[in-house]
């Protein structure tokens, strides 16, 4: 079914109300990967209720404002890539490329903040093996950062697409953006679960 769909799909100027942004296949990934993440979250939440004090104590060592800042940085990069898609659709590739750079820039900023946070925690003696809360903390943040690193490769593909007229297809641009947004919303949930949930 999908193969037939792909043959028809390099759409650019179809009726927008009938178009799956980025194509169906990337949405399969978004939904499947969020199901996997949800299963991790469920395991975390369940164990959290079983050892509430340990998790609360662990949580008290996090800096909430830093988490909020990271969230805003990643949301901004997501916003930039959404603008990038719109510019590309309108044929304004210069603007599109500028927004792609902004996306990557905010992505790098997020990564730097994250690494700084890890270093701070590890120096304070909170490591992957130090307590149950930090097991989950490092697991979820690291697996998310691996998604982010893959995201940089995806942005590379996006850049490569935008920088040559012959290669450009709106579908690929949207696929890349969809991946990046999914990295963003995984973080939104991870942030709420690690920093805010009580």
């Amino acid at each position, binding site marked *: 079914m999908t193969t037939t769909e792909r043959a028809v799909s390099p759409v650019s100027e179809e009726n927008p*109300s009938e178009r799956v942004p980025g194509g169906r296949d990337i949405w399969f990934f978004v939904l499947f990967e969020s199901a996997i993440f949800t299963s991790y979250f469920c395991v975390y939440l369940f164990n959290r209720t079983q050892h509430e004090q340990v998790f609360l104590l662990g949580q008290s060592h996090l800096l909430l404002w830093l988490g909020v800042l990271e969230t805003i940085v990643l949301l901004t990069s997501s916003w930039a890539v959404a603008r990038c898609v*719109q510019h590309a659709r309108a044929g304004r590739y210069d603007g599109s490329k500028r927004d792609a750079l902004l996306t990557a820039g905010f992505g790098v900023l997020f990564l730097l903040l994250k690494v700084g946070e890890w270093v701070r925690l590890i120096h304070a003696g909170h490591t992957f093996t130090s307590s149950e809360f930090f097991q989950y903390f490092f697991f979820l943040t690291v697996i998310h950062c691996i998604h982010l690193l893959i995201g940089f490769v995806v942005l590379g593909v996006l850049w490569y697409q935008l920088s040559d007229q012959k290669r450009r297809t709106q579908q690929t641009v949207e696929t890349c953006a969809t991946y990046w947004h999914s990295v963003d919303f995984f973080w939104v949930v991870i942030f709420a679960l690690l920093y*805010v949930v009580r």
Partner: protein
Amino acid sequence: MEDGSNRRLFVAWLILVAISLVYLWIDHSATHRGIPTASTVVTVVAICFALIKVRIIMREFMEVRGAPQVLRRLTDYWVLLMAIALLGVYFAGKAVA
């Protein structure tokens, strides 16, 4: 029209940032003398806010708003499913503990 959709993205971003900032205040309400305390209300609100943000990201940033109905429905059900799973496990865990 292009400016309109750009403004729409900006508004979506503003709302997302605002919800993120609300977390600071939520957190404040469940901290007693600098030590976090357990709170079901905070947990439920935090999860719901996160999933609302997920839905906004999907609708506005990922352009599900203009996608076929199947995808619109599917993503909504998916977010709903995540909410049921997370809150279900949380309350089940509470009941067991």
